[in-house]
Each structure stands twice: as structure tokens, then as C-alpha cells.
């Protein structure tokens, strides 16, 4: 499908920065409220997409005790999403999937967490289901079992979350990742430069740009800008390294040829904004993740906290948590 102009992607999934902030705030606060009222944020999902919420806590003392469970902040959630988006890239790389599978999976993951807090649905499960759904939709089918086996995860979790994910995406399943746009622009740049002797350089330009796209996908930019602009931002960055062409002049030529509604300066402003998101991007390490992940585990299962207080049961606990589906991030693929 090559028509972004009439797509659901353009119509429904490009937001303003304020809209994003608002959405993240709403889901974060909803989860916090749930934690207060129910003592847990865990939502059970079944394969038909139906959800069951934690039982309201009637025992006042327990609620009292559990009200100490700390929720994740909006910033925590953000870091956690980036962490698992990186994991999506690792898993896709390990399986050798084409880039668009990875791009689609990450965009699914981002769209999903516009509706939900990571406290409500564990990102590890959602990550796997997004990869699975992306393979299915991009006609590159891999069975859930195969996928689960490859990264030592229970494939039933993938299937259980599938309907929830599809529904949360509003069944808008065709997404436009910027990789394809890069191909198009590089072909165009070839004409623009009339560069027959520069084919090697253009290839480098393209490859570096694709790596830039990998990083851009970890920011909020895909929810704020159309794929063509993401691709141009990546190419501009890449051109700074390779110095193949006069990029400003090239942008000018695109604008004049497309008779677009935008001006050259508007386009440059967008590219600068994408650039600044990229600069701000914080790649969380496993160490950064540990405290956040601990919080998340208590949110999902506050009884872990009770256990912890009883030191002598720690052995039992470690056994229990290792059989838990929601493990530490470090238990994800190696």
C-alpha cells in the first residue's frame, strides 16, 4: 500500500506533542488510581481480548500496607518503553527479520502504550505480541511457538495478548515505517546529484540513514511526524557524516517539485525537532532498569513485597519469581 495520504496512519496516528503528553499522563494516573484502590495494577487478558481486573481489596489493613507500593512515574514508563523497544530491535535482529518487521512492531508497541500504562500490561509480553503481529501483518509469518522458542518465552502469552493488541491498535494495522521512504529518497538523490560515480557513497548514505532510523524509532518522533520526514531527518544526519550533497538545496528541490503546502523552512523546522528528540533520547541500561523493574513487579503483584518482608521466605520467593511470567528484563533474550 503506497498511499500514505489516505492512510489510517496519517489520519489517526500522528499527534501533537501536547496530545502525547496528555495521553501518557492519563494512562499513568489511571494505573496509579487502580493501584490505590485495588492494591495491584495487574490486568489479566484472555485470548478473546477480554480483561479481568484485580479484586477490590476489602481487607483495610492489607490495602494500608500495599498503599506503600510505589507506582512508576511517567518518566519511568518512558524509560521502560524505550528499553523494550530496543529489545524489539534485538529480537528482530536475532531472527534476521527484514527491517520493516522491526519498524512495524515498534510502531505497534508505541501505539499500544498510548492507550495503556506499562503498569497495566507488562511490556515484555506486549513486545513479543507486537513482533508476532507485525510478522503476521507484513506477510512474513512466523508461528508463535517458533517465536517463543527462539527467545525462551511462553508462546501462549503471545497468543493471549494478540486480540488485546489488535484492538488497542484500533485494527489499524498497516503502518508506514521510514525505511521504504529512505529507499525512495536515495533513488531521488541519485537523480538530483546526477552522480554516476558516487554510487558507493550513496550506498553508505543509505546504510547510515537506516541506522539513524533505528534510533529515531526509539523516540516519540514516529508518533509526531510522517515517515517521509523521519526518513529525511535520518538522511540529513547521515549526510553530515558522508557529505554527499548539499542537503538544504535538495530539500528546496523537493518542496518546489511537490508544490507542497509546506515551505522549506517548515520542513527544516520539523527535521530539527526530530533531531532534538534524537539528542534527548536516553538509552536505558540494565542497571537503569533494575529499580523501575522492581517497582513494576510490586505493582503487578504486591504480595511479592509481603514476601520480601519475611526474610526467611526469601528462598521460596526466588523460586516463585523465577516461575513468574513477568521476570526481570535481564531474563529476556540474550
Amino acid at each position: 500500500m503506497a498511499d500514505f495520504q489516505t492512510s489510517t496512519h496519517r489520519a489517526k496516528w500522528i499527534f501533537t506533542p501536547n496530545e502525547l503528553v496528555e495521553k501518557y499522563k492519563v494512562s499513568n494516573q489511571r494505573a496509579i488510581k487502580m493501584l490505590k484502590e485495588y492494591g495491584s495494577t495487574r490486568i489479566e487478558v484472555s485470548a478473546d481480548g477480554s480483561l479481568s481486573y484485580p479484586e477490590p481489596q476489602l481487607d483495610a489493613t492489607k490495602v494500608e500496607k500495599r498503599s506503600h507500593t510505589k507506582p512508576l512515574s511517567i518518566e519511568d514508563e518512558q524509560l521502560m518503553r524505550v528499553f523494550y523497544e530496543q529489545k524489539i530491535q534485538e529480537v528482530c535482529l536475532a531472527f534476521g527479520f527484514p527491517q520493516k518487521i522491526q519498524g512495524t512492531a515498534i510502531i505497534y508497541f508505541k501505539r499500544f502504550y498510548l492507550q495503556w500504562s506499562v503498569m497495566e500490561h507488562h511490556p515484555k509480553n506486549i513486545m513479543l505480541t507486537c513482533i508476532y503481529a507485525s510478522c503476521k501483518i507484513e506477510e512474513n509469518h512466523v508461528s508463535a511457538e517458533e517465536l517463543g522458542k527462539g527467545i525462551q518465552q511462553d508462546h501462549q502469552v503471545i497468543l493471549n495478548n494478540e486480540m488485546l493488541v489488535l484492538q488497542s491498535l484500533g485494527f489499524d494495522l498497516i503502518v508506514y515505517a521510514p525505511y521504504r521512504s529512505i529507499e525512495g529518497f536515495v533513488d531521488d538523490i541519485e537523480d538530483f546529484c546526477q552522480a554516476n560515480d558516487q554510487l558507493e557513497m550513496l550506498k553508505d548514505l543509505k546504510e547510515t540513514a537506516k541506522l539513524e532510523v533505528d534510533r529515531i524509532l526509539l523516540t516519540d518522533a514516529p508518533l509526531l511526524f510522517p515517515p517521509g520526514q523521519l526518513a529525511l531527518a535520518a538522511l540529513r544526519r547521515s549526510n553530515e557524516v558522508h557529505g554527499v550533497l548539499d542537503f538544504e538545496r535538495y530539500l528546496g528541490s523537493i518542496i518546489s517539485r511537490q508544490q507542497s503546502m509546506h515551505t522549506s523552512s517548515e520542513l527544516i523546522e520539523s527535521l530539527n525537532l526530530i533531531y532534538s528528540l534524537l539528542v534527548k533520547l536516553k538509552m536505558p541500561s540494565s542497571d537503569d532498569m533494575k529499580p523501575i523493574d522492581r517497582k513494576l513487579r510490586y505493582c503487578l503483584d504486591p504480595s511479592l513485597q509481603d514476601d520480601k518482608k519475611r526474610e526467611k521466605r526469601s528462598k521460596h520467593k526466588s523460586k516463585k519469581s523465577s516461575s513468574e511470567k513477568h521476570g526481570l528484563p535481564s531474563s529476556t533474550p540474550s
Partner: protein
Amino acid sequence: MLEVDQLLSKKVADRYLKKEVLGEGTYGVVYKAIDTQTGQTVAIKKIRIGQYKEGVNFTALREIKLLKELKDPNIILLIDAFPHKNNLHLVFEFMESDLEAVIRDRNIVLSPADVKSYLQMTLKGLAYCHKKWVLHRDMKPNNLLIGVDGQLKLADFGLARIFGSPDRRFTHQVFARWYRAPELLFGTKQYGSGVDVWAAACIFAELLLRRPFLQGSSDIDQLGKIFAAFGTPKPAQWPDMVYLPDYVEYQFVPAPPLRSLFPMASDDTLDLLSRMFTYDPRQRISVQQALEHRYFSSVPAPTKPALLPRPPRKGDSLTSRPPDLNVQEGPTVLSPPRKSRRVMPQREKVEGDAHQADRVDDHFIDVRQTTGGNTGKSETMPMSIDFSVFGSRPPPRPTLNSADRSHLKRKLDLEFFPPE
């Protein structure tokens, strides 16, 4: 949050008021329903989930993802999709009938202007798909639905695919056999919009003849039928043919004059038909070009959709199709240079795994969800007619809708290539 969830499930039960069952297909039941929010009549396709190991039904997902992006007067409108009580529900605009029911109904007379109108709407829907780089891959009269206002719309996108990526390989097991282009029958994996044009040509011919035009009983027989109608293609006519994976040499038969097959058709009709039935997919007319063909600008002008003849609503007496007695004999297949398993039978004899998929086709005939006609296998032949006299039964209408069956599904979806 809780409210949101409750809203989601309530909307389902409350918003749509279920009425009678319209049909039952391999992948679920279709209901007529009223959308209480708009008062509109809709059709709801209900698909069981979690039934197979591979999660949400593949065919349904294909249909949803494409129809969400395709909005055109000649494409079925997907209004909504939601899960409810272990079923995925797809809500479509309600359609009264389908083109197969029109073609079959002996009480309907189709004037040249009517045929032109039906073909034009078919091609318009297809042109829109191709413009968006979507191949339908299951064009047949049964999948062309007709609305209350007479508008024809392409439906059933369960086999449809995005095309245009260079070098991407597809399965050739698409389309019901009678509508399959020769390049598919020769096993090509790289094809384009020409396959839909060929199928549209078959539908055009079917509108003119009022019976399916090329009724092969196997893939080999299908090619035989095609060659009997248009002559065995010479390599000069279709240079790539001999390199196709399943190419077999057929005994040469010359083409009878096209006029002899369509005695009543105008010159413009025959010209457009022959361009749509061109062997070499590279030379075959595109849908857009077909729409610009003088056939559509010459008299008579296409009938306005609202004035087109349509079959009576569902519930009227069962119309049985008279048996098709003009079985054409195809040319003999010569033994192929490389593939001895293809040394060829006449019709009916099916052997070797090469034909597995055909058997599957015939086996899981899908009784479609259409409203107007008695379609698919549900139609019974009049008891008094004994086909043994003719040596062979007329072939049942083949379909390719068993994609849910995991074995065929694997066949269809075996497009996972190890990454570059």
C-alpha cells in the same frame, strides 16, 4: 479504565441488533444486523478466535488490514471490527445480492448496456485496488456483491495482498481455478495486477455467456480449456512462458475466431475481451486502460446502477442452474521435457502431490455469505439429469477459501523467506 472496558463490550451487544443468519462460511457465520446508532442495516461476519494454534484468523486479519485503508464506492465498506465473546466480529455494509446470482438467474435478461455497467463497476473497484498496490487475487462473480442501490462492490479480501516490492514472491495458489490466469497455472511466483485483469475478463465473458466461461476440472485441464479458446500460445506471443516453473508443452491448437465463442458480442466487446485475455501478462491491458477503452464510451452507455436487473430477494424459490452441456475438449498435453509426473491425463484423473491443492479446493467448498443467491454447493442439480451419460460430472464451482484449514493455510502462507 473499567468504564472503558465495559463500554467496549457493551457497545457490541447493544449497538448491533442481530437478525437472521445470512450464510455460513468456512471461517464463520454471517448475520444480518441493525446498527442501532445509525439505523443502518449491516452484515456481521463472526469469526471464532483462539480456535487454531496461530491465534487470530489470518484471512480475517488480511481482510481487516486492507479494508481499513481502502475506501471506494466499488469496494465493500468495513464499518467496524471488534472482539466479543470469543468471536471476532467484522461489520460490513449490507449487500443485497451478488453477481453470481445475477448471472445464474434465468429470469434476468442482461442487455449489452447492463453487462457494460456491471463490468465497469468491477473494473473501477479493481482500478482503485491496483492504484493502492493491492491485488485482490480472488475475483469471481460470487465475490462481487450488489448493494440495495445496485452498486457493485468488490468483497472478500482474504486472499488480497500488497504488491510492488521488487522480487517479492507470492503463492500461485490463488483465485478459484476458473478465474486463474495462465501464468498462475504455470506456477509463476512473481506476478502483478495482470492476474486480476484475467479474472475480470473471465467475469466479462461469464456476463456475456451466462455461464462460467472456462470450466477446467484441474489445473492442467484449465490450461487446456484456455488454449482451446484462444489457441496454444507461441513463444513469440509470450516469450517468458517457457521459463515458468510448471511450464508444460501443449499440443498446438489454433485459435478459433473469438466471434465464434461470443456470437452476439459487438466489435468493441470482442476487442476489449481479447486485450484482457492477452497471454503475456506484460502485454495484457491494465485495468485503467480497460476503463478507457472505447467499449465504455461507445453506445450503448452503461446502465445506471439503480436500474440494473437484479435477482429477487432471498427467500424466493430455489433457482437451479441448468446443467452445462457444452463441455469443450481441450487439446492433448504432450509429455513435458522435464517433469514426468506431469505426463498427462485427460480430465478427472488427479495424481501426484502437484494437484493436492486442487483437491483441497474442491473439498472444502465454501458456502458463501451472500444474500441473494443459492451459491456454492448448496445448489443441487435436478435429480432427473444423469450425468453418467456424459462420462463426467460437470465440475463443481471451485473456490479457494479454505485458508483456515491449517494444511492449505501453510501452503498459502509459505511466504516466509529467510531474510536477506
